[in-house]
């Protein structure tokens, strides 16, 4: 469904991605792991159109979307939960969710999706009139995911959703990601928490300093000695 080929990205003189290729098939959960600064966030930003590559192509269902704006990509069903949540702190929970559906005009369907999000995250319904900035870290992460779901995406990108959350909450977030996937949304997940991420992954890629160095199914990678040493704590 989604394919990137030989992507190069530069920040000024910094060569952040060096010929990265990866593929996400419909219905999969694909995980991208790697050390700090490896280029995981940059990869997601390139796919969702927030950063333009200096080389390579991005294909969605076979169509070349490399030069499309972020706006067009959202319309085509791509949705991005950015690193660090980036909720709209000064707006209410409900306003945040409404902004997630910004490009949609089908009012009736939007309110259905709002119900769906509230069902998945009951706490958000309770707090819908509260300023998003006053939510706890875990609630903010749920809001960020809920907001991304409001565009009714075919494929969802999540950038380190477990960042800064307590273990119990991390487990909950991972369960939710699996649920979302089962409900029909393809998932590309960036994680530092390699152990748990690989457990829910259909396939996974490992990045190091701007390149993909290993790829395979989730269970293959969990067994690999290199991975165990580098990312799973022995």
């Amino acid at each position, binding site marked *: 469904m989604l394919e990137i080929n030989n992507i190069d990205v530069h920040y000024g003189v910094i060569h952040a991605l060096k010929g990265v290729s990866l593929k996400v098939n419909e219905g999969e959960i694909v995980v991208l792991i790697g050390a700090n600064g490896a280029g995981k966030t940059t990869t997601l930003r390139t796919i969702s159109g927030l950063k333009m590559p200096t080389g390579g192509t991005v294909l969605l269902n076979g169509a070349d979307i490399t030069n499309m704006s972020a706006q067009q990509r*959202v319309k085509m069903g791509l949705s991005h939960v950015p690193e660090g949540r*980036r*909720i*709209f702190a*000064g707006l209410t929970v409900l306003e945040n969710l409404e902004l997630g559906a910004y490009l949609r005009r089908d009012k009736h369907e939007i309110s259905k999706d709002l119900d769906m999000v509230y069902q998945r995250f009951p706490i958000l319904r309770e707090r819908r009139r509260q300023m998003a900035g006053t939510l706890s870290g875990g609630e903010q992460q749920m809001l960020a995911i809920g*907001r*991304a779901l409001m565009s009714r995406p075919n494929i969802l990108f999540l950038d380190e959703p477990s960042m800064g959350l307590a273990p119990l909450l991390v487990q909950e977030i991972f369960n939710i990601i699996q649920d979302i996937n089962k409900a029909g949304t393809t998932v590309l997940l960036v994680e530092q928490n390699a152990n748990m991420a690989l457990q829910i992954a259909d396939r996974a890629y490992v990045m190091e300093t701007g390149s993909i160095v290993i790829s395979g199914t989730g269970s293959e990678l969990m067994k690999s000695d290199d991975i165990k040493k580098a990312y799973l704590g022995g």
Partner: protein
Amino acid sequence: MKKLIGLGLTYAIVQILIMTNAITGYLQATLVTICINIILAVSLNLITGFTGQFSLGHAGFMSIGAYVCALITMRVPTVYGFILGVLLGALAAALVGCLVGLPTLRLRGDYLAIATLGMSEIIRIIFLNMEITNGAAGLNGIPQFVNWTWLFTFTVGTVLVISNFIKSAHGRACISIREDEIAAEAMGINTIKYKVVSFTIGAFCAGIAGALYASYFYFLKPDLFGFLKSVDVLVIVVLGGLGSISGSILAAILLALISSYLQSFPEIRMILYSLTLIAIMIFRPQGLMGSKEISLSVFSKWASGLKSKRGRV
């Protein structure tokens, strides 16, 4: 409906006071200043308070509206000339705003502030050196068409247009840019477009304010539109509350009243004025209104709060 009655009453009362000569001379000038400052502050609030783009260029846009309107009414000294002058002045300011906004609004925070400051200075220097604007000596004897009716119409019009814009989906998009530009972009919001739109609308309104200024005070020179004028407007916006229209209106009225009251202490006027500003910012760092709006429901809540308190005593 209640709003409409309130507006009608305000208009009628002031109009009667003017006709019965209760508001004359100095008071009338204060009234004009208040209205012009409301237009300036509300439109800068759209750019800075709602869209989150720190601009120091409002005086520049104001001067464009002022000079264009002055030059037109001096050649066509009729009410039609005046209306044409206001319109073309505002359009010219909007055009410059759009042209300047396209490249500069990619900049962030303090860089944008410096870029807009630079633009405003360039505009001032252009007016200073042009033949048609009579350079540093300025334009004198601009026909005076501004009366309370025009002032009221343009002020209320500006406030209504901007507050409706903010309540619309477009306004929501602008606010999301202020809250988090990257997240806004990820939601599919065209952030550059909305920054330019808000900058252009802001410039348009500043142009109207300039045109009204020219036509009431019938004298213009480039020095009136220096850096300090932009800062004055920014002070009103910050004092009223970034992201509060009613705050901007309240602050514009309050500051004009304070400064006219302080006229009786000419030597220490600016010191007292500054002290007042400092005091307000210490006690209300978020501005008088924060990002909240006054609405009639707030008043009724407040009133019922008072009642229930009294009930308990």
